[in-house]
Each structure stands twice: as C-alpha cells, then as structure tokens.
C-alpha cells in the first residue's frame, strides 16, 4: 500500500478549505486504478456518507460533523483529482455538510417560536431513510425472480385450431326476414306472397335427390315412413317444381312408371 502511495507526486492533489491535500488519507485509500470502480459502487453522496459513518463506527445520531465533512471532502477531492465524472450531487452535499458544520459552531439563535433545532436532523433523517431503502433493495434482489430463479410454464397450444364462427339463432333469421319484408313494403317493389314453407323444403329435398341420380321413379320420391301430409306436400312440391320448369315428369305409357328427371342437371 505504502509503495503505491509513494508513487503519487508532491503537487497537492486538491485543496480543501484552502488547505492543500498532499496525500490521500490513509484510512480511506484505494488504488487509483480502482477509483472509478470504487466510485461506481456508490449510489451518490448519501451512500458515500453512510459508508463513511458505518466504516468508522460513527454515531449516526451524533455525527461528528467536522470529522465526517473532512472524510467526505477527501473522497470528493480524490475523485476530482482523477477527473472522474462526478455527479453534481456530490458537490452539493459538500456544501450542505459545510453549512451544517458551521451552523453547529454558531451559538444557536434562541427564538421564541422555534425550539432548539439540531442542524444535523434533516441529514440524519435522509441518511436513515436512504439506508432503509438501500437494504430493502438488497432484499428485493434476493427474492426469487421469474426468469432468473425459476421459469414460468407456458405450453404451446394452437389457439387457432377452433375458429369461432358466428352464432345464428332462429330469431336472427326471423329478424332478417322481417327486415327484408319491411324494406319490401316500404319500397312496394314487389309483393311477397305467403307460401307454404314445407312445400319449399320438399322442393329442395327432391332437387337434392335428383342431383345425384339424374332420374328417379316417382314412387321413390315418397318415403315409406311419410305421413299423409308429407306425401301431399311432396306431391305439391313436385308440381311446383314442374311449374317452375325445374323437373320433367314423364310417363311412357298409361299406368306405366312415372319418371322424374331434373332439367337443371342436363
């Protein structure tokens, strides 16, 4: 350590309160090349002050201001000597420390309104509050942290596999239909006639049957299980299809087999 100190040249490395500082104070010496690292380890003037107080076992409730100020200024001088980029807050703190020190030297002005006030109180409050947060930060860092100490599980799954399709309720259909009718009524463009739904349904059914088979026998259009009304409706549907020229009904001879053929599929 001493050998390193010796390498420092005689010109004062700084002036504190006008007094030249010829060498770095022994008790807080750090190798110059480590200074920057050292400075980085401090989060600011409060951190540095706390370090000094704790290192020298100073009573935080009765800080010897002269001693602390001198220590602190040595550091700041050192940092400036090495032309480290020094946060302005360090210099501001120097001013504050000197102010507190000088106020303590003065006889406290006994005013009627204010009780005796320790000029160090605010500094102590800030130091303690900072220390509290500093320790809280260390504890927070030690808490298990997602991604660092454990991993969160999130399995791959295909959210696209079931595409949501619009839901249609029969009432929606009904409303759509009413909408059409209302518009139609307003426009008076065409007259909508009431038609039997079931005939229309059976027309579709017959066409669907014919689509694949091209031609069927008339009797095959009627399901053996069909009710009377189904038979009638099927027959009506067939007639309607014939009227709309969608099917062709043919009979080669009297009482022969009646063939139903889809015209559309030709």
């Amino acid at each position, binding site marked *: 350590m001493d050998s390193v100190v010796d390498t420092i040249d005689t010109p004062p490395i700084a002036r504190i309160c006008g007094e030249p500082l010829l060498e770095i104070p022994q008790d807080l010496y750090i190798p110059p090349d480590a200074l920057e690292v050292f400075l980085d380890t401090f989060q600011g003037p409060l951190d540095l002050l706390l370090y000094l107080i704790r290192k020298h076992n100073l009573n935080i409730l009765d800080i010897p201001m002269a001693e602390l100020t001198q220590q602190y200024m040595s550091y700041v001088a050192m940092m400036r000597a090495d032309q480290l980029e020094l946060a302005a807050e360090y210099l501001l703190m120097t001013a504050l420390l000197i102010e507190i020190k000088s106020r303590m030297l003065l006889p406290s002005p006994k005013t009627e309104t204010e009780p005796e006030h320790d000029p160090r109180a605010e500094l102590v409050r800030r130091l303690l509050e900072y220390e509290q947060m500093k320790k809280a930060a260390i504890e927070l860092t030690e808490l298990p942290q997602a991604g660092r100490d454990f*991993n969160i*599980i*999130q*399995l*791959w*799954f*295909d*959210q696209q*596999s*079931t595409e*949501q*399709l*619009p*839901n*249609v*309720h*029969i*009432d*929606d*259909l*009904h*409303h*759509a*239909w*009413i*909408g*059409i*009718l*209302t*518009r*139609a*009524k307003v*426009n008076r*463009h065409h*007259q*909508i*006639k*009431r*038609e*039997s*739904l*079931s*005939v*229309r*349904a059976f*027309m*579709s059914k017959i*066409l*669907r049957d*014919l*689509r694949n088979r091209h031609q069927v026998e008339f009797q095959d259009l009627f399901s053996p299980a069909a009710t009377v*009304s189904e038979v*009638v*409706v099927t027959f009506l549907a067939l007639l309607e299809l014939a009227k709309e*020229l*969608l099917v062709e009904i043919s009979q080669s001879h009297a009482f022969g087999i009646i063939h139903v053929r*889809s*015209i*559309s*599929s030709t």
Partner: protein
Amino acid sequence: MSAPSHPPDPLTTTSSPLSPDTIKQILEAALLTAQEPLPLSELRKLFDQQFNAAMLSALLEDIRRDWNEKSVELVKVASGWRFQTKPEIQPYLDRLTPQRPPRYSRAVMETLAIIAYRQPVTRGDIEEIRGVSVSASVLKTLTARGWIESVGQRNVPGKPALFATTAHFLNDLNLNSLEELPPLEEMKSLIGQDDQNQVLPLEQSHLATVETQSRN
C-alpha cells in the same frame, strides 16, 4: 414416483450421479418451459452432454407414458419434443380466450333467411327480394359454413344455381326440420289481407303444428 432415500442435490452434478427420476424431472421442466420443441441435441445440454441420445430417448418415452392419462401430452414433432394439449381439451381452453363471437353482416343474414324461407332460390331471386345485388362472398360465406348448397340449376338462360339450406344448417340451428323455423306471422300485418285467403286448408294444419313447436 418414489423419493430417493437421500434427495440428490441437483447442483452438484459431479459428486453424485443423477437418478433416472431426477433426469426425468429435469427433462420435464425443460420441455414444459421451452418456447420451441427441443431436439435431443438441446436436451443433452441440460446434462452437459453427460448422457447419450439413446438414454435420453428412452427416458422421454418413459415421460410420454407417464403423461398418458393427462390432458397434456408429450409429442415428437419435426424439430424435436414438446408438450402440447390434447385436442379434446381444446373446447374448454377456448372458453378462456373469448374472441367476441363474430356476427354475420346483414347481407349474409338476409340472404340466409331468403334461402331458408324461399328455397330453392337462385342468386337472382335473392337479389330481387333484397332489392340489391348479392356479392359472391356472401354466398361463399354461407357455403363454406356448410349451411347452403347448390341443389341444381334453374332451366332458364344462364342456368343459375339453385340454393337450398342443408341438414347441417338445421343441426347448427337446433332444428329438426325447416317447419320449425319461426312462422312468419308478422307477414299478416305486412302483407294485405287478400294474400291470406290464398293459403290452402292443408297448409293451415301444417302451420298449426309449426306454431305449437315454436312455442317450446
């Protein structure tokens, strides 16, 4: 899974060899947390290449069996191994991501209504009733949904396709037949009384049935 007599310290890999159970645990954890399927080459890194691919493969097959009864399965895909949910669980999981159920446009709904109530109809019929042209995408939407299909062509110039609703449409709307569609009662008020008289007696009885059903 039986606990080893003294728990192996997973940190000190060099001192005590890992038990197959611990290796499986580590494999599981890696596969459950991985963002991508993990190939064997990656999985070997977990143990600093200590175990060969064959051994890890055997353990992976073991894990696959362990998970057999679960809702999540270990599968081997092109780029490696991964856990994934079984398809049968999907409908439940979908409830957590409620994309607001999409709705069909008015054009789609009206077209569907016309086809349902007036089938079989051509595109021209639909356009005439709606008073506006029907875009191809509307019919495509309904066809893709499996709700309508072409059941033939009308024998007029251009042979336009005739559309009808499908059995799938009835299923999806929880209907047994088209007669269960809501009766168009409101038409009475919309259409003149004259039209009413044209209804056949037969259809009256049919309608009565429909109306009873619709009240269910």
